């Protein structure tokens, strides 16, 4: 073992000397690895970014909230089975809340009704079209992960009294009130005036996924008063303990069946969704992107590896006589093998390091150019690319190093 460490150390010195002696060649060869590592690292960062973006967008849904809906949150092949289901009514929330109160060991905290529509919003000369307009109760903030940047969410009195108040998303506020505070200003929705009482903290949008920034929320009572037409309604239910998700889901299913008055032989005519289920429908897409991306960029690294293998073969050929001399002076097969393996690995490591530095610079640049895209240059990524470089060096150097170690000393010495 000690002997091996000694040999490794000596081989490093030889490798370093070899690289210094043929700088141009080393740099050109390492270039392949540099490009490969840049590509793989950037792709890794992008995939990480996509992951973070998805997670962030998903967090709007909350990981401790169940959603009772007519349609499931996934693609269904038998849509006709869902089409004729009864709509989910906002009144269910009250019924469920009463049931929760009566059940002492309930896993559920509170049910909140939501209705939504797309509406235009105006203030002065500014207008934003197709804003996701949500009607709900004051309990909504219990189920939500979003805070107010300015002002507040509406309270129970406003909620019950159908007050004309709205809480608006960051982007909506930005578009309507570019240079003033929106608080206590009145905006026009569907010809009705609503007083702005709160602005949400910026959440950021990602790949056009649903975001708080472009929506508004108002009391359900007011919502029903003005936009009774064709709105979509759901009921969301907050859990006590998110680790008991399955229990809570069963409980809620029971409650909903009672609400709907379903006899035992009938199937559920509603769906209970949670964030995780939604995530898992997106996972295959995400994984395909990740796999394809890494595969394609991996190819460029592969080309780099072939370059290293090629140059190591050339190096072995050129130094055949040297190998013979080394063997005559007592180098063992293992020593020669190590020497060439380390030479190719050193090249790859240097290439990997330079590539990583480039990738880091490019990431910082991209991060500045697209602030919405969550770019993270993680320690894990650095480690991974260094490991990939070392592996590339070992794998591409192995065949030539093996050839070198097996050379017959006399043949090698005679080589011209």
């Amino acid at each position, binding site marked *: 073992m000690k002997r091996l460490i*000694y040999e490794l150390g000596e081989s490093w010195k030889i490798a370093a000397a070899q690289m210094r002696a043929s700088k141009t060649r080393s740099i050109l060869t390492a270039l392949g690895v540099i490009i490969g590592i840049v590509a793989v690292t950037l792709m890794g960062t992008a995939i990480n970014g996509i992951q973070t973006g998805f997670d962030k967008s998903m967090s709007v849904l909350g990981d401790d909230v169940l959603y009772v809906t007519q349609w499931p949150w996934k693609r269904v092949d038998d849509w006709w089975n869902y089409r004729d289901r009864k709509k989910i009514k906002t009144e269910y929330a009250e019924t469920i809340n009463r049931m929760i109160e009566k059940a002492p060991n309930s896993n559920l905290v509170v049910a909140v009704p939501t209705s939504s529509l797309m509406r235009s919003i105006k203030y002065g000369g500014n207008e934003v079209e197709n804003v996701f307009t949500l009607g709900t109760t004051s309990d909504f903030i219990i189920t939500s992960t979003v805070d107010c940047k300015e002002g507040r969410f509406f309270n129970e009195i406003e909620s019950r009294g159908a007050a004309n108040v709205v809480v608006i998303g960051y982007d909506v506020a930005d578009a309507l009130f570019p240079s003033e505070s929106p608080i206590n200003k009145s905006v026009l929705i569907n010809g009705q005036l609503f007083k702005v009482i709160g602005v949400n903290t910026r959440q950021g949008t990602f790949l056009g996924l649903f975001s708080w920034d472009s929506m508004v929320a108002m009391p359900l009572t007011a919502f029903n008063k003005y936009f009774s037409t064709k709105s979509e309604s759901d009921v969301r239910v907050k859990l006590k303990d998110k680790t008991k998700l399955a229990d809570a889901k069963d409980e809620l299913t029971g409650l909903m069946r009672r609400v709907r008055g379903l006899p035992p032989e009938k199937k559920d005519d509603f769906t209970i969704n949670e964030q995780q289920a939604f995530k898992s429908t997106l996972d295959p897409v995400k994984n395909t992107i990740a796999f394809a991306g890494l595969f394609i960029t991996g190819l460029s690294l592969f080309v780099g590896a072939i370059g290293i293998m090629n140059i190591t073969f050339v190096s072995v050929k050129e130094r055949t006589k040297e190998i013979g001399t080394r063997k*005559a*002076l007592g180098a*063992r097969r*293992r020593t020669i093998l190590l020497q060439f393996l380390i030479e190719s690995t050193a090249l790859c490591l240097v290439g990997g390091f330079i590539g990583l530095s480039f990738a880091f610079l490019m990431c910082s640049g991209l991060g500045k150019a697209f602030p919405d895209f969550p770019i993270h240059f993680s320690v894990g990524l650095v480690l991974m690319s260094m490991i990939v470089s070392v592996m590339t060096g070992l794998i591409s150097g192995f065949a030539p190093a093996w050839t070198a170690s097996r050379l017959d000393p006399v043949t090698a010495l005679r080589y011209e």
Partner: protein
Amino acid sequence: MQTLDSIRPPGSIVIDIENLTKDYVMGEEIVRALRGVSLQIRRNEYLAIMGPSGSGKSTLMNMLGCLDTPTSGRYEFNGKHVAKMNDDELAAIRNREIGFVFQTFNLLPRSDSLRNVELPLIYAGLDPETREERATQALRDVGLGDRLHHKPNELSGGQRQRVAIARALVNQPSIILADEPTGNLDSKTGAEIMSILETLYEHGHTIILVTHESDIARHARRTVHLRDGLIESDEFVQPGEVPSLAYT
């Protein structure tokens, strides 16, 4: 012709070969480079192997140096059967027991003298301080104390061969094998190299030398003539007049 005893007290047997053969297969044809060579070499002998080109001198030398394995025959080095050794054991013998000096010097072109001489010590696993110390001493011994950090291309032919001799010596081997060490040198530098070998011999080293030239062979105390892969003659001789040149 004299007996060995009259020159020096006999040492123990280092090399003992019997009926050694070596065939090279070249397609259809088989080249019989050695056809049954028997030889005993004792510690502190100075032996020259002579013979016409193609007679098998280098082949025999490679065999003695454990660089090559015989086709048949017995070879004992310090009482151990070489045929039974694996690759690592052969490498260890080459490293510790044998010092090679090549006609073409075979120095590593990009390393300085010190680093070249250190090589066998690296393979012996010595620590850097000891290595440098011993390599420096070996270079001083061949008169190159002031050329430690010269690369081979910054040295003359004779100096290169002296670096090679220092490298062969540095691990204190049982024998030094020199295959035409003066073949690439002019006669004056050749004489310098020969006087170094002479001094090594006087200090108790065992030297085996391959040469074409009888002038060079005259330095040895014993001459083996090869012809067509067989020993033609094996005789002990008085050394010719060797001027005891100081190294410089």
